[in-house]
């Protein structure tokens, strides 16, 4: 039996979109209903948001979810 061992990494372009909109982390956090620490963690790649939060972020930036979040296969 073969088992897929490829690690998937979720990358986000949150900081790019935030910079485009000239928003501070605090402002974005308030707008999508999370703490600033969560924005910091997401931008630093330390936290992957839930599907609900990802959709909320996409809706806030009026874009598709795939434009902000994408998956990359990590090489072992």
């Amino acid at each position, binding site marked *: 039996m073969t088992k897929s061992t490829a690690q998937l990494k979720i990358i986000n372009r949150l900081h790019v979109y935030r910079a485009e909109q000239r928003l501070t982390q605090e402002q974005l956090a308030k707008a999508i*209903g*999370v*703490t600033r*620490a*969560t924005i910091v*963690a997401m931008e630093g790649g330390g*936290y992957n*948001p*839930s599907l*609900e*939060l990802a959709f909320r972020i996409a809706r806030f930036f009026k874009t598709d979810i795939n434009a902000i979040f994408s998956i990359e296969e990590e090489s072992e």
Partner: protein
Amino acid sequence: MNRFDRVILKVFLYELPIILLYFISISIFGLEAAAQRNSYAKVWYDFGGCFVFGSWMVVSLCLSMRLTVSASCREKVLAKLTFLKERDEREVLLTGQAAKNTMLTTLAILLFLFCLSCFQISIYQVPPGQAVDGKSRVLSLGLQFDFINSTTKKPPQTDGTLEKENLVSYTALPLSSSSVIIGLIGWQIVSYNYLMRRAMK
């Protein structure tokens, strides 16, 4: 959290400083002796001792029972007491991880304490005349498990003719149940907060 819970919580908190003041006046100002001479002191002694302390004990029991059965009461009171923060989904996730680690370490500590409370070890020396195979030192191992606390102390077991001189003796945990419980409560709060802070970094 219903109205009854709110009332007993307020009574519990507001009576605390009065009780503290009462015990300070007993231990520092000698209220007990003063109550026999002064009528004001007697009123304070009776009010503080009988009414406030008695009602506080009843309220404490009610509150602890409500905390056990009511989820909303637990959420409101214990969450504040343990500095639990769940402002967004990330904090909910971290709280879950910290709570899981705390639960597992507490379980490990409880198992360790259970072992310490059950095991009995003693090394004793018998007089040369009573030595077995020329050996006068005896190692005795045992297990003790009491489901309920018996108030009467069992007399030490002797073999009738055996005169023992204890070298090392360990029987159960040398801590009272109250100190173990308060230790575990403190451990739960400290452990959770430490793990949560570490995860938040």
